[in-house]
């Protein structure tokens, strides 16, 4: 397997508070990497550092390197806007824009310069289909996206990310606001997507991590405690702290 991304001694600070301590973590191409750990352990901070979304918050500082295809994304010459086109993100709460379903998905392509209606229609169709949403919304493409259910909204948001044709998709607890049926659909979708994309998912839910991911990293108090294949982490953790956390969460 090859590494799509890799962090080297990555530390993140919010003003005076250090949220991450020198994390080294590889992210395998065309695989799902899950990040687990208790609230406030730094897993979301780590995720947001992978496409420089942490810079949106004032007073954030980063040390170390994050490599994407071998190049450091924190190099001052790198434009974060172009980076985020390659490394897309799905947020915890579904956040469709207050516009039609079509316009939501077409938003990314449009800002990146695609104007032709037929091209946009094709992209919207393809993206919605890839997000397993096309059949449910094909008759109401021009209705407001806010009328969709939570699960549909979250898949719409994924379609919106896919429309930009990213290489990596970051998901920050994407199922935490969804019901069990929608969650199952979302997990199926993640399975399909990994054939074409590299996926990193933050989750609170151990079963979910075990179900969807190939590799897992366990975070505690801003440190990466253990990283291994998901099977190894859940069946034979090397670290006592990992085992305590996993068994505690399962029990």
């Amino acid at each position, binding site marked *: 397997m090859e590494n799509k991304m890799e962090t080297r001694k990555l530390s993140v600070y919010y003003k005076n508070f250090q949220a991450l301590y020198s994390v080294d973590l590889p992210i395998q191409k065309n695989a799902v990497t899950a990040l687990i750990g208790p609230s406030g352990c730094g897993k979301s901070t780590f995720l947001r550092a992978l496409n420089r979304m942490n810079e949106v918050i004032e007073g954030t500082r980063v040390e170390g390197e994050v490599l994407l295809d071998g*190049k450091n994304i924190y190099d001052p*010459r*790198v*434009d974060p*806007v*172009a*980076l985020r086109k*390659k490394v897309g993100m799905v947020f915890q709460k579904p956040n469709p824009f207050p516009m039609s379903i079509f316009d939501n998905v077409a938003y990314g392509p449009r800002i990146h310069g695609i104007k032709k209606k037929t091209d946009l229609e094709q992209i919207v169709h393809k993206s919605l289909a890839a997000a397993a949403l096309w059949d449910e919304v094909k008759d109401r493409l021009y209705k407001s996206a806010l009328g969709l259910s939570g699960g549909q909204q979250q898949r719409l948001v994924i379609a919106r990310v896919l429309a930009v044709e990213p290489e990596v998709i970051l998901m920050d607890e994407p199922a935490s606001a969804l019901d069990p049926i929608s969650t199952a659909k979302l997990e199926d979708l993640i399975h399909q997507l990994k054939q074409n994309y590299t996926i990193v998912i933050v989750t609170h839910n151990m079963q979910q991590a075990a179900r969807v991911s190939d590799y897992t990293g366990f975070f505690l108090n801003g440190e990466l405690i253990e990283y291994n294949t998901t099977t190894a982490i859940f069946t034979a953790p090397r670290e006592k702290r990992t085992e305590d956390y996993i068994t505690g969460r399962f029990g």
Partner: protein
Amino acid sequence: MDKGLAGIYENLVKYLLGIVAVTSVLILLLIFYFLIREGAGLFSHVSLPGFIFGTEWLPDAEPPRFGALPLITGSLVVTTGAGIIAISIGIGIAVFLAEVAPRSVREVAKAVIELLAGIPSVVYGFLGLTVLAPLIKDMLNLPSALCAFTASIVLGIMALPTVVSISEDALDAVPREYREASLALGATKWETTWRIVVPSARSGLLAASMLGLGRAIGETMAVLMVAGNATLIPHSIFDPVRTITADIAAEMGETVHGGLHYQALFGLGIVLFSITFFINMVTDIVFARTSSKRGAS
């Protein structure tokens, strides 16, 4: 992935908006500059204390006399009267709306108050002149009702919406937990309102009062029309008075550009600007202190 033209464009937008934002600072400085530039000449004829404490305002006398004390007193008397009316009634109404009134009454009352706030001051002045003043004249048996008393009532009514809406916001912002804690200790709603809710909102109520006063002291047309316009220091609230604002409005038309009278009116502008500037700074400090306190908790 390198930054290119798009990045330059982004920065251009940012700096352009920054320049737009600086306009406000520029306008404030320009207002200050023009008041000083146009008014400064006065002080080679009258000393600053002579201007502020002089008791005779006779711009047409020979030689003209520019003692602004009657006008300053006029403004203070009318503003005090208006303040007493607007603040006491305004906070009372705000307490009623925020704590007791049913939702429907509250919504209607707020809409009405918003509408009252939108009535132009010249319309208030006109109604004060044609409707209220004759009424007060008959009721109190006065020779003329164009006096500080009537002006205070009209100004008080005009400042009322400001006081009510800001006070209501302040009371509304008091956390429900405070009320519940007090009620759970066996306090009545009346006790809770006056011992817990109102004290908790006091900085907001203070700000509302200050802004109401600022509105009243800067008001021009209504006082020009109903205060009687005598440039004398009043001995009772039923004496006619002239405020700083009304004097500027009434006399600017007759002045010669650059003349002494013209300069004196800009001098009044400086006095007025200083008073409102002071009120705004105090209000801002009160607000800043409370918001930082809230931020810390």
